[in-house]
């Protein structure tokens, strides 16, 4: 069965980009529907057990592995997307990131000065704060002190949050499966909330499986929560399902031949966590989950950054190598662990394909340079943990990719890119994208802020296109 409603824009994906674009579009009086595969949770209904959170909030029931299983991809699936499960860390890109984007894409407006006004506009829509250092936990103190002892440079993180009430002993690690006090500036309590108030129609638990250009418009069909197939039509389609989501949808819809670069140029900032075991309690589970980031010119030059992180017990159990009693004995020290990860600014692009059953297949490997970057980071982590008194340092058994970028990369050349400088796909004037899938390469900086800014920038053009 199908519906006959006709929209100005059909938006696929209720994550950060979809929410920001939708908010601008409905604000301009355009009629929009947003389709989201994940569920619509609120602070009272977020899953609290790790088993539920992993199963319900992510594609693939928790993780999806790359083809050679060297990287566990974490891909959120919920109304709000990454803003529900991430740490909401916001960083503007530096010149290094924009310079390499311009070089890769040939697009001159990918620059700090062009983006700064859009970053500023984002800051008008969500609350952005420096994480209060005075509530840093033992893990952050290890990070800060270890940087100091070794002469590396770090800086406090900036985050999209309201008041997290750390004075009440709140632990942000809980908010990795949704913030129970709505302090984290997740889309459903900020931008998406305002879009819905302005008339955005949101359909959750709807998995889009096919998009088509039909006459002057687009036709989007998929599986609704009740299992029925429903089709939505509109003048324009906004793809905001992320790197893998967008690429998969376009591949399933047969766009591969029209867009030769589709699914290529995929990057993840591969992350490797190391654990230090201390005699004294660290309590990395308490307080702000993260307080500091590396702010070291040497690290940046060498293509990696370090983050002050931790993970809930299941993930820690996956990081700790081995099994049996030895594994359990290490798990018992979970409150005595400090954890630092290296995030690699990866240079070796991966590729997204789809299986015959429609499941994404991701080929993504590290090249020698990426491995070198990882090793440099792990060396620095070792210095930091050892200098602060770790008895033992172990590198985690699994690597993760959660900054999923590319697949529909921006560029001027239709042979080597998918998305044009006008933010529509090459040769497809009414199919737009402005989420992380359009990133030309890995910036080495958390993508969220730039996804927001770019979505505002793109929305500005889309509104003009749709009004014309």
């Amino acid at each position, binding site marked *: 069965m199908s519906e006959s409603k006709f929209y100005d824009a059909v938006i696929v994906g209720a994550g950060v980009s979809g929410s920001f674009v939708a908010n601008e579009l409905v604000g301009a009086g355009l009629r929009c529907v947003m389709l989201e595969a994940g569920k619509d949770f609120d602070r009272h209904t977020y899953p609290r*057990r*790790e*088993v*539920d959170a*992993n*199963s319900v909030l992510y594609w*693939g*029931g*928790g993780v*999806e*592995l790359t083809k*050679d*299983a*060297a990287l566990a991809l974490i891909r959120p699936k919920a109304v709000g997307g990454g803003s529900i499960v991430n740490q909401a860390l916001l960083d503007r890109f530096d010149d290094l990131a924009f310079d390499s984007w311009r070089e890769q894409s040939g697009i001159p407006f990918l620059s700090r000065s062009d983006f700064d006004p859009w970053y500023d506009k984002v800051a008008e829509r969500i609350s952005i704060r420096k994480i209060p250092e*005075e*509530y840093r936990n033992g893990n952050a103190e290890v990070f800060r002190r*270890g940087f100091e*002892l*070794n*002469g*590396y440079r770090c800086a406090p993180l900036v985050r999209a949050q309201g008041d997290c*009430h750390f*004075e*009440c*002993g*709140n*632990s*942000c*690690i809980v908010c990795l499966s949704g913030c129970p*006090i709505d302090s984290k500036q997740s889309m459903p309590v900020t931008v998406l909330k305002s879009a819905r108030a302005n008339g955005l129609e949101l359909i959750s638990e709807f998995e889009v499986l096919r998009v088509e250009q039909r006459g002057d418009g687009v036709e989007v069909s998929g599986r609704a929560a009740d299992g029925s197939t429903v089709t939505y039509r509109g003048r324009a389609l906004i793809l905001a399902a992320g790197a893998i989501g967008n690429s998969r949808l376009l591949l399933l819809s047969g766009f591969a031949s029209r867009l030769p670069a589709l699914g290529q140029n995929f990057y993840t900032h591969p992350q490797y966590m190391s654990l230090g075991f201390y005699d004294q*309690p660290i309590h990395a*589970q*308490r*307080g702000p989950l993260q307080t500091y980031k590396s702010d070291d010119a*040497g690290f940046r030059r060498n293509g990696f950054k370090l983050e002050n992180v931790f993970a*809930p*017990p*299941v993930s820690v*159990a*996956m990081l700790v190598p*081995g*099994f*049996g009693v030895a*594994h*359990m*004995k290490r*798990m*018992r020290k979970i*409150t005595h662990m400090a954890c630092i990860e290296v995030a690699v600014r990866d240079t070796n692009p991966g590729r997204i394909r789809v299986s015959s*059953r429609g*499941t994404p297949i991701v080929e993504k490997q590290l090249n020698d340079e990426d491995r070198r970057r990882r090793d*440099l980071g792990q*060396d*620095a982590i*070792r*210095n*930091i943990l*050892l*200098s*602060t008194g770790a008895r033992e340092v172990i590198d985690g058994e699994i690597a993760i990719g959660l900054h999923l970028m590319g697949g529909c990369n921006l560029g001027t050349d239709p042979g080597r890119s998918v998305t044009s400088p006008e933010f529509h796909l090459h040769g497809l004037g009414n199919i737009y994208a402005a989420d992380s899938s359009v990133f030309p390469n890995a910036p080495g900086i958390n993508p969220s802020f730039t996804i927001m800014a770019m979505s505002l920038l793109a929305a500005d053009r889309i509104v003009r296109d749709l009004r014309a």
Partner: protein
Amino acid sequence: MSAALSSTQLAGLQKVGDVLIPGDGNLRSFSASGCAANVDVMLVHMNPEDRDGIQLLLGVLRFLPRFAVRGLFRLAGAQQKMPEPLAAVLRQINIGVKGMVMTLYYGAEEGGAVQHALGWDAQVVEPGSPQARRVEPLPLPEAAERPPAVLAFERARAGQRSLRALSVRERMRYLGALREVVLERREEIIDRIQQDTGKTRSDALISEIFGVLDNLAWLEKRGVKALAERKQHTPIALMGKTSWTWYEPLGTILVIAPWNYPFYQAVVPIACAIAAGSTVVFKPSEWTPLRGLLEDLFAAARFAPNWVQIVYGDGAVGAELVAQRPDKIFFTGSTRTGKAILAQVAPDLIPVELELGGKDAMIVFDDVDVERAAAGCAWGALTTTGQSCTSVERVYVQRGIYEAFRSVLVDRVQRIKQEIDRNGDADIGAMTADFQVKIVARHVADAKEKGASILTGDAWDGQSKLIPPIVIDGVRDDMLVAREETFGPVIPLIPFDDEAEAIRLANDSPYGLTASVWSRDLQRAKRVGHALEVGGVSINNVMATEANPALPFGGVKQSGYGRYKGEHGLHAFCNVKSVLIDKDAKKIEANWYPYTEEKYRLFTALTRSLFAARRLSLIQFALAGLRLERYSNRAARDRQKTPPS
């Protein structure tokens, strides 16, 4: 029960679950915890391919014996050593199955027993909630302003904590990285050395770049063994114990470098210190700071920034650094400054290694190949424009070949090409420092005044930094060129008659760094080598001991003391810690209290049996030892029974 798994697959899950989570204390086993009941939550949301794989795997695991399941996961844990695609399969199994088990066990419990046992207390509540805890803010430590010398030591001492925690092998990986960086950026480094010193590119390549690489490679290859703990002999009187030496970091070492080899004399001592686990505060000469270069190279070799602190400045800055009480000072430079440092640190008893000046002699006997000896002489006296602490500064030639040697030498020296080259096509370059040019001018003028003849380089104006090679004949003992360190391209020739005279002349110097002895008769050459009061001797070669990274370097007399380079030199950067390990037991040692007349008698018997030169003493020693031990323990018990006086 599970809707998504068959009973066989579920049994497989319980089995593998118990292998991975067998239980430990108050943490129950996987199956006993009942967490498998949540498995459907996981399976429902999986990609169909993954679900099929997991189901298949669990079905197979059900029928594998436990040891095989353990073996499989051990193999999976070692996947990094496996070839692809086997490694990929193992990773899939590990993440898929271990992931499922860990998720169910650590992430699915209702009661919170596991999280409680782990002390996991993460929560988020509204203010005013009854569960709210009270957390006091922890202010940040305030950073006070400190002078550069204080700051440098503070940082280097902080850097000690990570460096000393690394194994020697790990530290050597950093030196390996440094070697690669130096090798790759050699031309850039040579540019910088040339800018600061005015030496030729070949001088910089051969002495500084090659020398640094050679020493780094030696440290990488031999350093691990040289710094490994070493079992030492334990004498029979200490039977049952083991004895060791541990080569431990000293702490933070102050390295002060001279201007003649600004790169080599910086990197080699710093590398030795790093290898031995000590961090470094380094002060280059204000004449040749190579500003920013070393920081850059160490960063590229990914040294933690605090490991090596570089402070620029003159002697006053050096004195401030010395005042920070480093754990050791490694100084290369003039004898005058060396003495000043020693005087400054005397109240604090800070150990100092001094590599000071020299007036190195070359002794040429009449049985040598004159061409080779003269060629060696030219290089030894002129390399780096004569500004090496081990430059040949006095040439003693046996009278029989004196004239032949002199004419060959003059001929060779006249063909020397001198300029500050761009392509490696020059033999000698310029002098580095104006004050040293003045010293050379004074020495040459003094020689002329006292009647010596200048065979080459007489055209030098006494001011240009491009001092040509100056061969001087008719040199007398009272001339400055024969007594004081000239540190320039000056070659004083002095004839001698016999071996004894050569030794006397060579040793008649306040300095004693190195020397060379040239003779076809190796017996004689070695004999002379033994007789020379120096820290190093090259036989039939010149400045050659310095060229081998395995040989320690250093002098005697006014040339300083202490040795660096080689295993012996590496230990100079260590706290060589002696360790004796005994077992914990009830036994009392024979030399402990109480002392009694009887024990005195037994100990005397033991001493005599051990040290008297007699056959069968070993048996006597064993008997005496047994008696003494038995008595000592009895006596100790007896004494404890008597009331304290």
